[in-house]
């Protein structure tokens, strides 16, 4: 028997077929689950064809199902994976908000009824980065520049508290124009902890800490970037390099590939500094003391007990609070809030880059406590550079805003050392801080200082003509528009918003463009200009659907407003269909329950309003009650959000003659109106008076009427409807105390107002008829 035969016999061992790679692949592919055939529906997407499969997922070319927006995506369907689902619950907003030219964006995600996870991503064509370098025979500089672009993308994501976890050439596609794009951010698969640390990492691209099953940090990505660079510089024929550059490159790669995370580059920006030095042929930074590293040391020295459990909690509460604020004041700040969330994340990740954020143990105090301590130390720690202090202060201020602590935010930003640091800041920086202060004042309903700070922000930008300055100007003007509209000055508000829109378009900021369209659309609705309002809101919805995804809360709430405007121009059926569709699509989004709840409430309320306009009172009551229940379940008692749906139920019940229900919900509405809806106080008290009057309880009716009158006297009311309704209530109360003469007088006053009003709502006419009948009878 010859040597070869002996070797072959040795290879035929028990279970050898099960040890091969082929079996591993077979299992992985089977794990991806049965393949969907063309036409299958996943969430709002329709599968067209299979693009590939592997790991625990199949990837399909898919198309958005409804005809509202035509969109093609790469749809990844991941087999039931609780670890990934849980993490996405925390990170989805952050991942969805990634907007970077070198990152393939996640458009939408959800779960199938079977519990599989689906992820809709932008379609990219290209070849893996190493194959690209090989095919084009790129020289060493071109390779490093290409790699640096990828690092830029990773740096951007790290600043937003996201770790990629699976950076490898196959995940970096370079298109025909030479633009690299990073795939699958934050959605690398991990097995649950109970699985013996057996993670589905890519063999050969796993960092030592991944193999050891230790928690992953931004350092893990740096390690993987190091491997990609190494591979890239060897792909095909290794390009010629000056020997000193080669020496530096080796040193750079060695540092990135250090087994111990602490010995690697502290941040991607440090890695990029080395790349820049290599390209410029400067010596590499041996002891890089970049801002971020000093920031990290600051964090270390003061041992901020912020654990990343806190990041997760925070990311979650950010979403909730953001939408709470948004709903309360009809102010859409969703996009701005996402930016804030990112700034906070940047602080947490950057300062604690070395502290292994993702694997922190439990405990460590609340975010608020940690922030308070950090703020205190900031003012004491004057040895830090101004830049570091300012960056940290901004981050802490952001956290305060997010957790609804505007007072703390203001006191942090107005401390003597903050003021002093602020004077040394650039115009753009000063403007940003001023905007933040303005928004804090607004959150405290201090409108005058809020306006003053917006003026200052505008002045700080002076004649700066950069797109960034334009973006901030658009922001300022939109905020001013908001303030004006809060003060009932709709026309002036619209002028500011039109200007904001122009600037937003010029600056290329989709976020500000969206805000302007949306606010203007909402304002025009309030000024009865429904045609244009519908037009603008449709644009806002389109931008939002494109940039944030069709099921993002901003898109859906904008659709809610759009429906309202459509309804008012007689396109009721279209409006009703849009709302029903939006509510249905919410059913497929399971990842962010809290958010979904708030958006659901809003859409239910929109639908209720639509029925209300048509006096379809029973349907209105059903949806308004649902909106009320959903809102009460998801918001604190101290907020005013539940006012609108409660008030809607009360009005419908009243008009439908169900005075008991009207009384109950007017009482609810009153409770929430006291949290900052002065007009609501007038309305609710008025209705309670009317209900009591109809029940013949003159004393109680009078009591409520007096309160309504007091509230009325102290509030600047411009709406003719409220005054007319109040007149009618006065008439009812007069009737209850048998003063028919006074009642008739009030009715005739009301009639005069109605006669001069152009767009008298149907309910008001109906109420007038009822009161007249009571007086007449």
């Amino acid at each position: 028997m010859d040597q070869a035969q002996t070797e072959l016999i040795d290879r035929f061992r028990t279970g050898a077929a099960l040890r091969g790679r082929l079996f591993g692949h077979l299992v992985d592919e089977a794990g991806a689950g049965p393949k969907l055939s063309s036409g299958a529906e996943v969430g709002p997407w329709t599968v067209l064809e299979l693009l590939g499969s592997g790991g625990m997922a199949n990837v399909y070319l898919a198309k958005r199902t409804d005809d509202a927006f035509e969109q093609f995506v790469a749809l990844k369907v991941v087999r039931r994976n609780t670890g990934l689902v849980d993490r996405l619950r925390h990170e989805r907003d952050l991942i969805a908000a990634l907007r970077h030219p070198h990152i393939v964006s996640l458009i939408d995600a959800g779960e199938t009824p079977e519990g599989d996870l689906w992820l809709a991503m932008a379609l990219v064509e290209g070849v893996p980065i190493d194959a690209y370098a090989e095919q084009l025979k790129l020289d060493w500089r071109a390779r490093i520049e290409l790699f640096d672009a990828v690092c830029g993308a990773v740096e951007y994501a790290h600043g937003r508290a996201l770790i990629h976890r699976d950076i490898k050439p196959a995940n970096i596609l370079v298109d025909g124009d030479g633009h690299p794009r990073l795939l699958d951010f934050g959605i690398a698969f991990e097995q649950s902890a109970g699985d013996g640390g057996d993670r589905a990492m890519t063999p050969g691209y796993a960092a030592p800490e991944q193999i050891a099953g230790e928690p992953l940090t931004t350092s893990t990505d740096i390690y993987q970037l190091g491997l990609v660079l190494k591979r890239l510089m060897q792909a095909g024929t290794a390009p010629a390099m000056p020997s000193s550059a080669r020496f530096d490159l080796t040193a750079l790669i060695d540092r990135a590939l250090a087994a111990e995370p602490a010995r690697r580059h502290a941040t991607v920006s440090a890695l990029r500094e080395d790349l820049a030095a290599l390209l410029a042929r400067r010596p590499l930074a041996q002891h890089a003391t970049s801002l971020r590293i000093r920031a990290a040391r600051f964090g270390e020295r003061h041992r901020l007990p912020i654990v990343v459990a806190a990041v997760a909690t925070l990311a979650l509460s950010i979403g909730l609070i953001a939408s709470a604020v948004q709903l309360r004041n009809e102010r859409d700040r969703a996009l701005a809030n996402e930016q804030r969330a990112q700034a906070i994340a940047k602080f947490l990740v950057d300062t604690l880059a070395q502290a292994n954020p993702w694997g922190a143990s439990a405990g460590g105090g609340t975010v608020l406590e940690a922030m308070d301590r950090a703020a205190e130390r900031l003012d004491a720690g004057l040895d830090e550079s101004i830049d570091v202090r300012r960056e940290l202060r901004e981050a802490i201020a952001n956290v305060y805003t997010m957790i609804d602590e505007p007072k703390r935010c203001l006191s942090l930003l107005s401390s003597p050392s903050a003021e002093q640091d602020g004077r040394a800041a650039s115009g753009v920086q000063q403007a940003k801080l001023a905007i933040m202060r303005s928004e804090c004042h607004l959150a405290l309903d201090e409108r005058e200082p809020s306006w003053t700070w917006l003026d200052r922000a505008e002045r700080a930008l002076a004649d700066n003509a950069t797109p960034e300055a334009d973006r901030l100007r658009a922001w300022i003007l939109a905020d001013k528009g908001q303030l004006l509209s809060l003060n009932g000055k709709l026309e002036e508000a619209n002028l500011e918003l039109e200007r904001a829109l122009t600037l937003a378009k010029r600056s290329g900021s989709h976020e500000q463009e969206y805000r302007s369209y949306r606010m203007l659309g909402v304002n025009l609705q309030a000024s009865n200009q429904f045609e244009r309002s519908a037009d603008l809101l449709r644009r806002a919805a389109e931008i939002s659907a494109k940039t944030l995804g069709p099921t993002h809360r901003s898109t859906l709430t904008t659709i809610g407003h759009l429906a309202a405007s459509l309804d008012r121009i007689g396109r009721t059926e279209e409006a009703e269909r849009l709302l029903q569709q939006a509510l249905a699509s919410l059913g497929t989004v399971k990842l962010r329950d809290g958010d979904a709840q708030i958006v659901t409430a809003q859409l239910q309320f929109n639908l209720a309003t639509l029925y209300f306009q048509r006096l379809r009172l029973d349907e209105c009551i059903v949806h308004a009650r649902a909106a009320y229940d959903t809102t009460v379940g998801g918001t604190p008692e101290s907020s005013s959000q539940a006012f609108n749906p409660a008030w809607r139920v009360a009005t419908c019940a009243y008009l439908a003659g169900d005075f008991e229900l009207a009384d109950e919900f007017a009482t609810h509405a009153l409770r929430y109106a006291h949290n900052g809806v002065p007009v609501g106080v007038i309305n609710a008290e008025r209705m309670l008076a009317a209900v009591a009057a109809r029940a013949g309880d003159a004393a109680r009716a009078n009591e409520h009427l007096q309160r309504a009158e007091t509230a009325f006297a102290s509030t600047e009311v411009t709406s003719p409807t409220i005054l007319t309704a109040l007149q009618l209530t006065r008439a009812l109360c007069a009737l209850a105390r048998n003063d028919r003469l006074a009642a008739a007088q009030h009715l005739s006053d009301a009639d005069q107002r109605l006669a001069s009003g152009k767009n008298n709502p149907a309910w008001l006419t109906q109420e007038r008829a009822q009161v007249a009948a009571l007086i007449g009878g």
Partner: protein
Amino acid sequence: MSAATHEFLTLLEAFKRGDSQASARLISLVYDDLRRLAHANSGGAAGRTMNTTALVHECYLKIVEPAAISVESKHHFFNLASRAMRQVLCDYARERIAEKRGGGAPHDTLSKVDAELSAEATSLIELDELLNRLAEVNPSAARVFECRYFAGLSEQETADTLGLSLRTAQREWNEARQWLAKQMS
């Protein structure tokens, strides 16, 4: 019979009838165990030596409820499973090779991993064809090889499953290996 056993046997029947989705579902039934098995053995996890036979057993026992099953049906099950393992794996190998020939994805660069996989698939197909020939001259030895190589059964289990004496099973395992090695080299 437990629900899992029933499902497994139903799928096995479907698979034999040529239902292409059956093998995927078959595997997904015991997916987690198989995955552990596959990854424990593919050399990625350093410092961990896994007893394949033990893992295979754990996997089978998940399907075949140990308390409820008679010795005969256990043997019957192993008999089926070893054939199924071979068929599933070899079908998969053929599929992969066919896909590669068909062009596959437009930008599918043949990486080192892909090349290795294709080589493995090719030699597996060769082995499969040789086993068919062996079955013509020595059917019993071919069955022994199937049980041990594809299903990871031990000597004793193979003997029990095929109703052979331990000595015969050992001898035929050696004969099969020598015959195959000779044909291949």
